[in-house]
């Protein structure tokens, strides 16, 4: 009998074992948690009015005409509950671009690192006096590295401001869940990849209004929720 596999066969066995391990690991995700299949979607009523900011240009010439883009209201949808093996937070960014914070509203998970790159050809000075996170990044140039950042460790609402441009305002909602999404400007939302179980779905509309409904997420299904 001729041994045809030789060392190559041994190597192939190792490769097979490795592929099997990876397959089991990936399968484990699917077996232990059905996220990826479960979806909540629906509609949330949004505040009717929204402001169009006006830039104070009294003592300086501002390029681009000083006209700021409109910022229609949107809602933050997030799922609260006891979750096993929640995914770790990913790094987020709030840009300072054309004299505005972009995005103007950002939901993040507790422990998220948020970077604040300055994309304008001038100084900004991002700061917050909100109790969940008090900081002042100072003045830095667009090319300065590393990009200034903050880690948001406490849940709550953080109002971002610029010490130089008083019209600039942004919000970061720090939540204790990895499952959140922004609605569109019509109030439609789509929250995918949820773990099955009984949870509470919350809709943050503004600093005074948060709606909530109990939901049951069933693996592999799409549930529709309409906030009243």
């Amino acid at each position, binding site marked *: 009998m001729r041994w045809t596999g030789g060392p190559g066969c041994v190597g192939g066995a190792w490769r097979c074992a490795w592929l099997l391990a990876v397959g089991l690991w990936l399968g484990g995700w699917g077996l232990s948690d059905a996220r990826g299949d479960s979806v909540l979607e629906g509609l949330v009523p949004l505040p009717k009015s929204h402001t*169009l900011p006006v830039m104070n240009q009294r003592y*300086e*010439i*501002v390029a681009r*005409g000083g*006209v700021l883009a409109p910022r229609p209201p949107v809602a933050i949808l997030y799922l609260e509950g006891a979750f096993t093996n929640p995914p770790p937070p990913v790094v987020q960014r709030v840009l300072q671009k054309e004299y505005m914070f972009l995005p103007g509203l950002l939901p993040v998970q507790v422990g998220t690192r948020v970077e604040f790159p300055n994309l304008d*050809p001038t*100084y900004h000075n991002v700061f917050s006096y909100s109790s969940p996170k008090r900081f002042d990044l100072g003045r830095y140039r667009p090319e300065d590295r590393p990009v200034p950042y903050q880690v948001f460790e406490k849940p709550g609402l953080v109002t971002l*401001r610029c010490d130089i441009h008083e019209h600039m305002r942004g919000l970061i909602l720090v939540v204790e869940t990895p499952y959140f999404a922004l609605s569109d400007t019509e109030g439609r939302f789509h929250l995918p990849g949820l773990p099955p179980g009984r949870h509470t779905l919350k809709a943050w509309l503004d600093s005074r209004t948060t709606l909530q409904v109990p939901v049951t997420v069933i693996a592999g299904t799409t549930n529709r929720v309409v906030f009243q």
Partner: protein
Amino acid sequence: MNFLRSLTWLLLPASVLRASASLDEALDRVDERLTVSSWGGRVRTRLSGTLDLEAYQVEQPPPGLLQTGAHQLLIPRLTLFLDSQIGPKLYAFAQFRADRGFDPSDTPAEVRADEYAVRYTPWEDGRVSFQAGKFGTVVGSWRQRHLSWQNPFITAPMAYEQILGIYDGEAPSSFRDIVYVEPGSRYEYNPLIWGPSYTSGFQVAGVWGAFEYAAELKNAALSSRPEAWDFTDTGFAHPTISARLAYRPSPMWCFGVSGSEGSYMRPEAVPTFPDATGIGDYRQYLLGQEASFAWHHFEFWAEVFEGRFEIPRYGNADTVSGYLEGRYKVTPQLYVAMRWNQQWFGEIRNDSGRMRSWGYELRGLDTAVGFRPTAHTQIKLQWSVHQTTWRQLENAHTLAAQFTLRF
């Protein structure tokens, strides 16, 4: 004791406001309510303002442009700003104040329109803009931070508020009139630049790459008093021309030069002039250099002005005034600031024909600490000591406190 009482009144509302976590949210909502738009957002108007409460403890005579015969002064001030964006090319703004005089004084309350202007910017890149109205001078760099919320101090740098032996209401009748400022009539005299100099006129300004330029044609000189700033007060018979050119290689640095030239005497002074001379024969010239730096939590500004006044019968009176100013944020809410001011005077011929200095050399140290309990409130404390070779003002100390609510 009165100053301490005033200070307590200033700190009390700040402490209460500090305890109110929702104050910022409430004032943000007020801000949204005070911003209106129409024509699909093409026309937007925002009303904002500050409410200031200032307390001074001064020696007599008081420093700068303070007008009081007392040792304590309490000044409330309401300032309203109107900013309007009409399409991408038209911008208008106005500033109204209710207080006890443009400069801190114990005079009765009054309401004024301090600034109002319309600006047209034909191109989006800001290469040129045209502005007309009543607004702060383009000269120097202090204009950008002269309002109570932005100014690290309560008072202005020496060049913008220290009165000189110059007075615009009549020609001096003797050398003593120039060199000796009567304490009882200090408001008759003028500084090198009167505050932000909200005079009336036209401005052309723009940005070309790293360069900023501005030129203005105004109705009154930089040293002119607030009563001369309106179109209706002095007209345009003797305009002042000013210009500024600045180089900003990066947001960190800015270097600029400014110049100004115009008549500074008022019409009521004409009968006291030497024969065959008029307002146009007595001019104020000013040349300024500035530098500024900002990096992280530190900001620094420096300005030097060389000024010349043509004084009836006494010729050219020269002066140099400058300052170095720095601010450092110790924490997100707390900053400290320090400013060194200095002013020198040239010589003119006195009544006996000898060359004599027409002013007393001045030095001044201003120190301040500022705290922002919330994003809309600020408390400042300032201590200043000014020295001069004139015995009456030797080591004059000033204590000042200011509480500001911004909305």
